[in-house]
């Protein structure tokens, strides 16, 4: 019974959300140029499926490319920062400073350097996604129980061996938890860059649609973005559950 609820609940809530939206638009006679009804958006999505598909594939590509770079850089810097308090202290102000800059603000600079298009979107996605990865990996490494390190030290293990056998496995739950956050952030970064400086991608599609007052298409774009975000988040949540089950084990998990 409660198991059924658990499974059904997200669907019930989501469908309910759209139902309320639809009803509210009808009851309050809301103009479709202010807020289109979900059914109108759905029709729009079917009509314009080709443009939506091409542009969302582009966004997906820039997101994943930026995300991939963010994983590599975040993992590397996280290991560096987590393993050495000196590096941590040295890099800390710059890192926090860079992260505080709103990413929309760097897009114009990227455009000057790389021109309009794919590269600024990838770099924006990267710049917003790598920070949580780095911080989490560093935290995972810095909070290793000294007892676990002692197990390897007592065997005469080298620093590198300790990192490989204890540090990295121990940091994995932190790493995968950050991936869920990072993928959605990368997505946001890519879309933001596309709205400002691109001639392709979901962000661009929405900008040009709003310039034409094609409000249903704007909302169709929003919906596609939300959908992609949910799918990517869930994909990484699944990877996380698989890889780091030992950290998230529940007390009643039967085996």
């Amino acid at each position, binding site marked *: 019974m409660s198991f059924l609820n658990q499974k059904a609940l997200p669907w019930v809530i989501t469908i309910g959300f759209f139902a309320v939206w639809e009803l509210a638009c009808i009851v309050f006679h809301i103009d479709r140029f202010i807020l289109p009804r979900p059914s109108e958006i759905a029709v729009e999505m079917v009509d314009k499926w080709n443009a939506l598909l091409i542009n969302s594939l582009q966004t997906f590509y820039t997101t994943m490319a930026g995300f991939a770079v963010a994983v590599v850089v975040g993992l590397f810097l996280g290991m560096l920062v987590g393993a050495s308090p000196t590096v941590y202290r040295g890099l800390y102000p710059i890192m926090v400073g860079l992260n505080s800059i709103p990413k929309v603000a760097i897009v114009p600079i990227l455009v000057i350097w790389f021109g309009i298009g794919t590269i600024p979107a990838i770099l924006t996605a990267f710049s917003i996604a790598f920070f949580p990865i780095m911080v989490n990996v560093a935290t995972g490494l810095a909070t290793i129980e000294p007892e*676990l390190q002692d*197990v390897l030290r007592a065997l005469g293990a080298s620093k590198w061996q300790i990192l490989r056998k204890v540090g990295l496995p121990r940091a994995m739950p932190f790493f995968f938890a950050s991936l869920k956050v990072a993928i959605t952030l990368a997505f946001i970064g890519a879309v933001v860059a596309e709205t400002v400086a691109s001639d392709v991608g979901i962000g661009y599609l929405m900008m040009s649609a709003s310039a034409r007052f094609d409000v249903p298409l704007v909302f169709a774009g929003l919906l596609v973005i939300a959908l992609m975000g949910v799918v990517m988040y869930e994909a990484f949540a699944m990877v996380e559950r698989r890889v780091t089950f030992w950290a998230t*084990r529940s007390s009643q998990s039967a085996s």
Partner: protein
Amino acid sequence: MSKPALIAKAAPEAPRPLLAKLDRVSMQYASGTLALSETSLDLAQGEFIAIVGPSGCGKSSLLKLISGLHPAASGTVTVDGQPVTKPIDICGMAFQNSTLLPWRTTLDNVLLPLEIVAPHARQMRRNRSEYEDRARAILKIVGLEGFERKYPWELSGGMQQRASLCRALIHDPRLLLLDEPFGALDAFTREDLWEVLQQLWLDKRPTVILVTHDLREAAYLADTIYVFSPRPGRIVAQTSVDFPRPRTIDTTYRADFVDLVHTLRTKIARH
């Protein structure tokens, strides 16, 4: 390897070469706690010593000192004739708390030392299945057959302790440091494992330091028992144990065994 003397004398025949020596060693934690003060101790090669003393007196700290996990504040620790300045690589250590790695199965936890320690680390990939058999065999001895694929958090406290013991033994270390290895076990399992440990010691003759709260355990297993004072730990008594080996549970009911345990008990109580 000398044959175990049937009736060992209080003073051993020829003095065996030293494996480790503590010379007026003190040890202090960063927080300022003085764990050991001016402790001196000689450990002969192949000797089995037991350390007993009240809780918090610095017994675990002594093991950290000898293994090189923690530096001495003053005095010198020597192992194999070399002063200890960093973790040494001849020991197998069973820690007081479970330190099994939660992301590894029991079998992989037991195999861990073989991935690190000298001759094995290089052969690990090639001889993996051989080493796995070895780990399975040793897990079977301590009664963990069938749990090789379980994760540590799927084991009971006592089972985790037994797995830790296997991990300490797997690479045949010359120096075995055991910190209350049987503390979480019921009396019967514990006595079974005394027998296992004794047999292993008779076969391979590692040098063993056993920290325990159980005076019968100390008397059953050790050549020499050291009694520590409350913190900061100092050695307040040292007793040779002369019962012939192999000792059995029957040995523990002999009058002189009971007397020995009684004497130890009074020594701890008095300090």
